């Protein structure tokens, strides 16, 4: 079956095809790119339907996995597989790419390259979520970096070069360490499994689930390997103190790119922790869990306090994004069904909410050409529907009960509280500053008395400050829909995630609490 390959390569091939378009046919380029993303979305929906009809088990179903020998002597295979966890993230990626491409119609410069890079980025992320060979995982991991770099460095704001360089350096330092870790992991696994077993980078064999070659790594080796892997993932998530690239990157990138980076790409880091670190190094993860938990908690509170005082819209959202990702990390390292299930659910929620917020902030920035919070004020009367959309997204982000953000955070924190009361309390504390800075964000733009002068007032006079257009509405509408849907009825997604989660976490043994 080539289905998974088709899902991954379709955007890539589509993006390449786009490059053969004449440069002047801007409209055709945009619509073709959107159509490609939509077709990809349809493919993903087909994948979901296929998956749902199948008995849920990892790495066994023939439709939902494929494997081709590539460099067998090095344990490198082209092998893909999908389970509930990757399925929801694949769906998230496809959705967000579609939305972000639709939101990119305003990009004027080099639209052809832009769209091609967006599609390439999608391919990279899908590959990361679907790869079940470590080497392949690494390749897709690096594939993500290239388009992200160009999108940031070419279409970004004033300080785009600085931001892009910082992003690339941070990310690649992390991923080189991961590459070392991958190579060493294969070596130590072979060492532990015995001479008759070949060098393998196949996830199913490394996890000892499908192979007769069982090798259990010593705890020291596990710890070092975990640290190498975690370096790559911690930068991508990001965990503090590896987050320094993020505010620059998120604030300089064009809004749709930021939405895609924050919404989907940050999930690859957490996915790495969940899919690789925890199952591959179960003992080390438990030993080092206090470290990650501490980083997560400090990050949650630290970034929340930072978000309180940011003067730049997108920086504020960037810090809030890190803060919320900390909750996901906490949930992940609680090692119980609620915490981890909540974490995966919250990955989806965070993706949707953050993307919506960044896109809406982008709409606003497009109208006023400023990101400074102090330039805004009292716009709700001028742009009521944009205010409503932004309000919904902000409320979802601050975790208002009944919206999606609450569902995931509640479940994660419930799990955290079960495993460690102190962490649970500290993590839950974040709802207060979260409410505070999101209200500051919303109120600062939409409420209060309008400014007497400044950029925004000028754009009001010019008449360029219009309410949300139909096109923009259709861009964010799916995201808002999901904000409500997951808030009201999360059982469906949780039902997809949980069986796979429990299967994946079997390796944790008794440490994994139901």
């Amino acid at each position, binding site marked *: 079956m080539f289905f998974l390959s088709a899902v991954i390569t379709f955007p890539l091939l589509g993006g390449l095809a786009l490059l053969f378009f004449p440069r002047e046919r801007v409209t055709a380029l945009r619509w073709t790119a959107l159509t490609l993303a939509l077709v990809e979305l349809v493919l993903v929906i087909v994948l979901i339907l296929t998956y749902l009809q199948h008995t849920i088990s990892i790495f066994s179903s023939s439709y939902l996995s494929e494997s081709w020998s590539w460099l067998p002597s090095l344990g490198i295979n082209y092998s893909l597989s999908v389970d509930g966890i990757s399925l929801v993230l694949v769906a998230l990626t496809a959705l967000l790419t579609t939305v972000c491409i639709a939101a990119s119609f305003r990009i004027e410069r080099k639209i052809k390259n832009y769209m091609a890079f967006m599609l390439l980025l999608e391919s990279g992320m899908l590959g990361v979520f679907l790869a079940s060979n470590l080497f392949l995982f690494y390749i897709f991991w690096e594939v993500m970096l290239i388009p992200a770099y160009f999108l940031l460095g070419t279409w970004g704001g004033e300080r785009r070069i600085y931001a892009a360089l910082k992003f690339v350096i941070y990310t690649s330092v992390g991923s080189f360490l991961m590459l070392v870790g991958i190579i060493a992991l294969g070596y130590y696994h072979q060492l532990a499994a015995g001479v008759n077993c070949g060098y393998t980078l196949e996830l199913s064999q490394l996890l000892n689930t499908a192979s007769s070659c069982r090798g259990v790594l010593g705890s020291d080796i596990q710890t070092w390997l975990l640290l190498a892997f975690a370096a790559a993932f911690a930068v991508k998530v990001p965990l503090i103190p590896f987050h320094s690239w993020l505010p620059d990157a998120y604030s300089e990138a064009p809004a749709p790119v930021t939405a895609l980076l924050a919404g989907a790409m940050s999930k690859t880091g957490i996915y790495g922790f969940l899919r690789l670190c925890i199952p591959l190094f179960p003992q080390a993860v438990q030993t080092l869990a206090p470290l990650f938990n501490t980083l997560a908690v400090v990050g949650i509170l630290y970034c929340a*306090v930072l978000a309180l005082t940011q003067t730049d819209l997108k920086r504020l959202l960037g810090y809030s994004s890190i803060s919320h990702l900390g909750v996901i990390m906490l949930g992940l390292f609680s090692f119980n069904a*609620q915490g981890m*299930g909540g974490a995966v659910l919250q990955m989806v929620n965070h993706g949707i909410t953050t993307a919506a917020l960044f896109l809406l902030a982008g709409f606003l920035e497009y109208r006023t050409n400023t990101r400074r919070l102090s330039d805004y004020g009292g716009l709700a*009367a001028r742009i009521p529907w944009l205010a409503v959309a932004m309000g919904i997204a902000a409320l979802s982000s601050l975790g208002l*009960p009944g919206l999606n953000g609450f569902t995931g955070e509640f479940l994660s924190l419930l799990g955290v509280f079960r495993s460690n009361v102190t962490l649970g309390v500290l993590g839950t504390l974040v*709802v207060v500053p979260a409410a505070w800075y999101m209200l500051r964000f919303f109120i600062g733009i939409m*409420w209060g008395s309008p400014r007497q002068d400044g950029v925004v007032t000028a754009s009001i006079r010019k008449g360029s400050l219009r309410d949300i257009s139909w096109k923009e509405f259709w861009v964010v509408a799916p995201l808002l829909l999901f904000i409500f849907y997951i808030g009201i009825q*999360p059982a469906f997604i949780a039902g997809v995630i949980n069986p796979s989660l429990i299967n994946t976490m079997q390796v944790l043994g008794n440490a994994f609490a139901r």
Partner: protein
Amino acid sequence: MTNLSLWVLVLPLLGFIILGLMGRFMPRTAILTIGWGACGLAFLLAAVNFINMLSTSAAQRSNDSVIYHWISAGTFSLDFGALLDPLSMTMLLVVTGVGLLIHIYSAGYMADDPGLWRFFAYLNFFIFAMVLLVIADTFLFLLVGWGLVGLASYLLIGFWYQRRSAVAAAQKAFVINIIGDLGLMLAIFLIFAQSGHLDYGSVLAHTFSGGTATAICLLLFVACAAKSAQLPLYMWLPDAMEGPTPVSALIHAATMVTAGVYLVARTSPLFEQSSVALAVVAGIGGVTALYAASIALVQLDIKRVLAYSTISQLGYMFMAEGVHNYAGGIFHLVTHAFFKALLFLGAGAIIHALGGEQDMRKMGGLWGRLRITGVTFLIGALAISGIIPLAGFWSKDEILGSVLAQATASGNVWYYVLWIIGIVTAGLTAFYMFRLFFGIFAGSYRGETATAAEHNAEVNEAKDENTLVTAAGHQHTVHIRYSAIHEVPRVMSTPLIILAVLSVVGGFIGSLALFGLPGWSPLTSFLPSGLHAHAADLPLGLAWISTGLSLLAGVLGIGLAWRFYGKGFGYKTQMQGNPLYQLVFHKYYVDEALNAVLVTPILALGRGLTRYLEGDVLDGGSRGISMVFHGSSAVIRRVQTGYMRNYALGILFGVVVIVVYYAMRG
């Protein structure tokens, strides 16, 4: 029954959705039809349900029905369900009933506001959220309702969103309410971690270990204190008066703020497991009652007087619950909903008639112009002052009685103190209510003769208050001539009259045991027995003492108010020099202290971290590392001389090394 209760929930939600999406384009009548219709039908359904419930036997009155499966993860599984039992039914009737009256009233009050559709949409949303809070059958959906009423409150306080003070008040209310949500969330986590369940049935039947029970109850009470504006989380409620007056009546007096009282009553089996938590509830309730009443004594803004009064009365309710008499708390909740809604709506009528004026110093003598409002306001004031036989008397008497009963039963001196606080507060309540009443209605009209000096003083004192002109154009203060003051339209006065009637007769649903009718206690017998079974009994003689004293305190308070303000309100400028007066007038400087201790340092910390840790250390650090590489490459690049022959020499050097290595190895 399921279907009916579900519709009570769904109708206001539908109203909200329709108004929210299309209200902007609707004519006034359509907005009113939908807004009133949604709430009215919900009330009707609740009433039908209530009658149905009355016809069943007491054992079958609790009806829990699953609506849909919400989520499951591991051992955690949760359904969304509706619980209809006498307690939630009582709340449901109050919420939808008072809500309906206020919906009707709002049509008049908000008639000129261009955001009418928005207002009704929010009101319907509030009714939905409150109903959800009340009929939820799990702690989680309680939390959902809890958060959503907070949102509704936020939206309505900030209804005039271009007024800076309204925005600040809304933000404050939301953030403090989030602190409450935090408490509730933690309580829920603890409950789940200990019992493995979140539905009321299992949790309330579960026995927690002593410390855990106390922790859970205290966390729950944090939520209650935030929602019901108890010490130390009360600060948002007075500021919430920035919202339109019907909102103050509905949310910040009658219904939402009583959610805390409801929650304690709902989780009474838990509180029964922790005497410490109950003592805290009673203590905080008592202290808050006295504290808020003392602030109310000197307020000049009529809505703020009522706001502090609300806080004080909520304190009474918690006092009752703290001495095991949950039914008494609910009783006071019901009667308070009637007379406080009445008072707020009356105040709204006055403000409406005076074109937005809220300052007592510019009122007076309105008895002659606003007869209906005056009479109903008087009834409300009498009711809250606990004058027999109005509603407030009965419920307050029951509370004071049960505090005294607890005191005698336990012999703990602190309960006597609490009881005395209750009596004193009753006196203070009567005093400030009649100060307010006389200030508004007695004497002569002061609105036309405000001197420049007074005006300045007012500006200085109220510089953070509403002086901004709004887009809605409602709240800007116009001085209206006395002869131009007219009684409010019927759409506003009708709810006043209905509420006045309820304030008169509402007390009779309580116990009349004192007056020789021991069998008559409809509310208590309707509510589950757990809500009053644990309360201590009071001998009839002591009961008479308590009743008499509270009545005496009320009369005394009214008398003093008459003595000072009977001829009209006089603002005594010499009081300004009195430090005690200043302390109370500035609400004990709590807001200022909070700003200085919490808000400013956190913001300063954030700014400092952004600048130094984020900027200099992290950003600077990464730049520093790049400088290291930059610098070292400046050294190393000298190797690249550009002379091709040099490079060739390098190659040769490598070759020689290799060859010599082989030569040495042999």
